[in-house]
């Protein structure tokens, strides 16, 4: 298959000329006193593979269920392809859903499970079966049409669920933890397959997941949710390298965070005095802030460098004591103690199989980083 223009590279959310395909406008959902989704607004464009990422109970599944029509928003409106979804039941929506439990009908064969949606639209049996076998071939289940769900493995069931939700060629496919029930190895393989299918069909996908690696791998954009709110929307690298607040910085990946106050605020740089770090942090670009403002500086472990001598050119360098080293295979994680008592983490890729002179336990060393390595957070 040859697709010269990848969907991700077109980036309609930046161009801003195409109308959004899914428009979620000021949507809230309350269950009694509990607010599951709180005033969420979100635009999703045609052909996107959008991930809703968050911990359990953050409201991501409720948002998905409102798109599918299983829950009614307490407030706000949802439009799909320009059409207001208010009052439209699940069976009248141009969406289909792949359920976390797969929800395969246990009393029907694979074939009849996949055909179910077509039959409900009044398609004749012969035509439906033709479409079904084409779809089953696509998910590599050609020989399993006559089996019942309980005769399949977990991975096969997942494919049947995917086939069943795609057979009606929905404008929008909603996937609730699509890979959650698979073991790690299978999950990694299936991720790429899911992307391939999505790109070849051109269907817009909205995926709910709690797994940040999965979200990073799959998505064109990620919406990070916390306590019913969307806290940041962005492309995977944007979310990782430019988190807009402390929650996202902390939730995605691992981070070292220092609280401090602005001591110098110039157009080309700022300086932050952090009692936690035990000194000044130099940021090599301008930041919208005021003098003496309280803010946070976040820097990821893999951006830190360790050396026995203080590097002469480093804009940021602090003496640390190596308290622990965790060998992870592809990298090593260093647990470091600053003179202030604060612990920070540094990650070092294991480039060589033999690193006999490497920095190790109970050494006093220097940690340093570039003036553009970290991000300044005001929220």
């Amino acid at each position, binding site marked *: 298959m040859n697709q010269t223009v990848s969907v991700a590279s077109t980036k309609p959310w930046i161009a801003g000329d195409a109308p959004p395909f899914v428009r979620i406008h000021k949507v809230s959902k309350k269950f009694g006193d509990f607010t599951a989704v709180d005033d969420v607004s979100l635009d999703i464009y045609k052909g996107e593979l959008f991930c809703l990422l968050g911990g359990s109970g953050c409201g991501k599944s409720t948002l998905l269920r409102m798109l599918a029509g299983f829950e009614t928003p307490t407030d706000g409106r949802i439009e799909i392809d320009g059409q207001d979804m208010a009052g439209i039941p699940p069976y009248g929506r141009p969406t289909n859903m792949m359920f976390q439990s797969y929800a395969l009908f246990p009393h029907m064969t694979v074939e009849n499970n996949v055909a179910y949606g077509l039959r409900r639209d*009044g398609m004749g049996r012969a035509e439906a079966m033709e479409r079904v076998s*084409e779809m089953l*071939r*696509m998910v590599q289940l050609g020989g399993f049409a006559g089996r019942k769900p309980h005769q399949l493995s977990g991975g096969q069931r997942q494919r049947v669920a995917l086939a069943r939700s795609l057979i*009606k060629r929905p404008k929008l496919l909603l996937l609730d933890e699509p890979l959650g029930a698979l073991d790690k190895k299978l999950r990694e393989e299936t991720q790429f397959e899911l992307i391939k299918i999505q790109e070849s*069909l*051109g269907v817009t996908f909205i995926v709910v997941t709690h797994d940040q690696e999965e979200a990073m791998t799959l998505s064109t954009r990620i919406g990070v949710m916390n306590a019913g709110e969307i806290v940041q929307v962005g492309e995977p690298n944007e979310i990782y390298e430019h988190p807009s607040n402390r929650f996202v910085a902390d939730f995605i990946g691992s981070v070292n965070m220092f609280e401090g106050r602005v001591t110098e605020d110039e157009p080309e740089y700022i300086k932050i005095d952090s009692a936690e770090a035990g000194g000044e942090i130099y940021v090599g670009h301008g930041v919208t802030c005021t003098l003496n403002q309280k803010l946070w500086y976040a820097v990821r472990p893999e951006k830190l460098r360790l050396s026995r001598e203080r590097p002469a050119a480093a804009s940021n360098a602090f003496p640390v004591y190596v308290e622990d080293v965790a060998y992870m295979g592809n990298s090593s994680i260093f647990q470091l103690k600053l003179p202030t008592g604060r612990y920070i983490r540094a990650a070092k890729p294991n480039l060589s199989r033999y690193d006999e002179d490497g920095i190790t336990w109970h050494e006093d060393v220097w940690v340093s980083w570039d003036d553009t390595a970290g991000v300044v957070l005001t929220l």
Partner: protein
Amino acid sequence: MTDVTPADAPVPMRDADRSTAWRGTAAVLRRVGLDGRSLVIAIPFVWLFVFFLIPFLVVAKLSLSEPAIAIPPYLPIWEWDGLRLILNLNFENFAYLWSDALYVNAYVFSIRVAFVSALFALLIGYPMAYFIARSPEPRRTLLLTLVILPFWTSFLLRVYAWQGFLRSNGVINNFLIWTGIIDTPLVMLQTNFAVYLGIVYTYLPFMILPLYANLVKLEESLLEASSDLGGRPLATFFHVTLPLSTPGIIAGFMLVFIPAIGEFVIPELLGGPDTLMIGRVLWNEFFSNRDWPVASAVAIAMLVVLVVPIMILRAAQAKAEAD
């Protein structure tokens, strides 16, 4: 990866809205407040309302009317002579129940029989339920089936079987005389003992099933934790198993106690003429004396006795479900 049709391929039309005639009817029904949902609720609701709830109101009404030699054998409780509504509420039936020692005794005796029988059913049923719940499969299913099996055979015939066991030339007496333990047959049929026995026997499955359902959920690791911390088997039982099985004990006890209070067949077939349980009194008032108002008053009085146990049962079941 095989070739795939593009997303813009024509999507088949939804045909669910085919029938306009049906849609019209549905719209009319909706206007009078009857959509599919409320119709579905209405079917079981109306049935139970008419055939379960209203009958109690009729019984309450009848308990306040005066018996008469007529068809049906009672006088109406209100009359309308064109100008006045004449209410004719007769509390004599209840006063009669209260004043006649026969009825009071029958109530007290029924409650005693039901309570003692439920207690014995618990003492027999608990170890059985425990044993079954701790049995490995497939023995567990087999034993459980054996508990339920008698329930599927006729209740009446099982009580009848005890007649054959207990009578003076019955199985037990024949056996005891044959072995020489006794010379003259024991009198067992037509005694209160036979009534207790019959109730424990027929209601035992109702005791075992909720206990089993409760005990089977009890995790083995809890018992192991208790014995690991130094609890001997008896201590483990009293500090862990028994407290955790309280909902099952209450449910089982009530499931025996409540229906046993109103039992008719067992005292009739196994009890003596003086074994007066309240269900039997009601039956006799109705069928022998044809005194419908007094029978109704007996029923109302019985319901009053049952309200509290029924509430306890519901609470225990709600707790069991919540667990």
